[in-house]
């Protein structure tokens, strides 16, 4: 795991770690996955799901982690007690994909597909086809394979590569601001 120290990261993490209006975050060292976990939560603010994606008006937002979990407690700590537009956030973890979790995976809003699932990626994306699930992964060429957001790296900075067409097919609306800060890929 890489240690990232740029001030920009501190800001991003501060978003998730401190309440609004806070007087700044003490300088700490954050791991790469702390940053990525914060990004996962931040995505929620820049994506609009169709109404049918929620169980009811106050239904929670579900972040799923498929395969090996690189975040540990970090993600749980971030979403605990946090609500975005009145919805609480739940984290669900799934074992390595075996074809039996399809229904549960489709109920996720954000699904982080772990690197461990690299070989099963085609099947996973096929299973999620048509479901409003924002797929996020570190797997190379993820947007080109039909995934939506890939964590990439540029020097010490974690960047985003996005396939907006895939998101659109799934019924998700991505904020133009999110696209502004991402590298855009046109999928197959």
């Amino acid at each position, binding site marked *: 795991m890489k240690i990232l120290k740029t001030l*920009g990261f501190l*800001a*991003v993490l501060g978003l998730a770690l401190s309440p609004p209006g806070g007087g700044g975050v003490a300088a700490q060292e954050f791991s790469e996955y702390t940053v990525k976990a914060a990004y996962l939560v931040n995505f929620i603010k820049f994506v609009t799901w169709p109404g049918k994606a929620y169980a009811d008006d106050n239904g929670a937002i579900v972040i799923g982690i498929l395969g090996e979990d690189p975040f540990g407690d970090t993600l749980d700590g971030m979403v605990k007690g946090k609500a975005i537009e009145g919805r609480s956030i739940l984290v669900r973890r799934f074992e390595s994909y075996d074809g039996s979790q399809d229904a549960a995976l489709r109920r996720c809003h954000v699904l982080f597909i772990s690197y461990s699932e690299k070989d099963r990626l085609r099947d996973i994306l096929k299973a999620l086809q048509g479901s409003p699930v924002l797929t996020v992964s570190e797997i190379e060429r993820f947007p080109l394979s039909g995934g939506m957001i890939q964590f990439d790296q540029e020097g010490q900075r*974690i960047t985003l590569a996005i396939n907006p067409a895939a998101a659109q097919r799934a019924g998700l609306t991505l904020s133009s601001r999110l696209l502004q800060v991402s590298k855009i890929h046109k999928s197959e």
Partner: protein
Amino acid sequence: MRILPFSDMPLKKKITLIAVVSSSISLLIACFVFMLNESLTFPKVMRQNLSNLAQIIGDNSTAALSFNDSRTAQSLLDTLKANPHIRSACLYDLKGQPFARYTRPGEPEKWPPVVWEETSEFSAGAVRVFHPVLSAGDRVGTLYLESDTGEMQTRMVNYTLVTILVGGAAFLLSLLVASRLQRQVTGPLNQVVERMKDIARGEGDLTKRLEVTGKDEIGEVAEAFNTFVGKLQTVEDMKLDLISVVSHQLKTPVAEINGFIENMLMGLTGELNPKQRSYLEEMRVIGRENYRLICDLLSASKIDRGVVTVDLKPISTKEVVGLAIRDYEAPLAQKGLNLQLEGVWQGAMLYADRDKLVEALRNLINNALKCTDKGSITIRALAEGDKGVIEVEDTGVGMDAETMERLFTKNRVLGKEAHRSGAGLGLYITKNFMKYQNGDITVTSEKGKGTCFKLAVPLFKPGAGGAL
């Protein structure tokens, strides 16, 4: 241009001045209040505008802050170039460290430490705003914007120019409108004033009435003045009637008395002793003058009442002059004056009213006789174009130009040299008689050398409108 004190200004200037001054004052007050309001509200407006801009930039930078994309944030701040009034801008992260920065070219690269609360201040020629950037309710950073007040200065200069332009235009317009509107007031008033002056000089025609143009005070003045003139006219008419009646009543008895005096002098009542003859001769002179006076009054009152009738007929100058001089040969001889007649016997035919022309000529001879102590009186007949002219020239006291000017008016106050007798009506009557006969009277005179009156009437042209 000399500035008159307000009380001496003509009414039209007063009205214009009042209108222009009062409209200028209200305009000035309006402009002042407007400018004051602008200068008071402008800082607020500028702060508000800058806050709004910060809101927009902040909203657009949420993703850049959330996903640590300072390049996007930087390009966002660089768009502020489009606003030349923005001096500097800074996007701070949650730690209060600058995340992206912008300064206008030429400005020092300096940014204040972050202020966490939403603030906006207007001071020292600058507007500064700190704006918290929120993403779905979560604080993601802070935006600082600083703008110069050039916009306000430009706007104030523009407002001032517009105010001066509008003020100037309004001033000119109010001057124009006021100078036009004042005529509504001063026009009728001047008419009234002119008429009053005419009447006061004794020149006005009392039968004329002022046109009442409105029901305002001027209209009331005009109406009251008309009533006043009407009453004056009644009095004038009464006076003329009185003169007419009295002179008419006096004429016959005076003529009779004169007749009796003549009879007695002719010896019809027996031999007169020298004393009686002397008294009677004195009485004859007085009687004749009285008779003339009464005749003059009667003629003048006829002229004034407009009841003169004329009887135009062909008549020879010979006859006219003969009739006119008949009564004056004796007095002339008595004064030792020489009477010369020139061209009178050539037999030119005039077209005139015999009695009135004779009366006119008599008046002139009478005047010449009164004004001349030595020398001669010349009566000259001649033709000038289509006019027959009879001149009466004396070698008397003469007149100055001033006297000549008011010679033919009634009620004139004559100089010492002519006060010798009569009511001064002679020339007034002569002038009017000549007018009735389509003729005219003119005069030339030199003080101390003599006077020459000239009567002109149309010559008689047989077959061309002749009455015979």
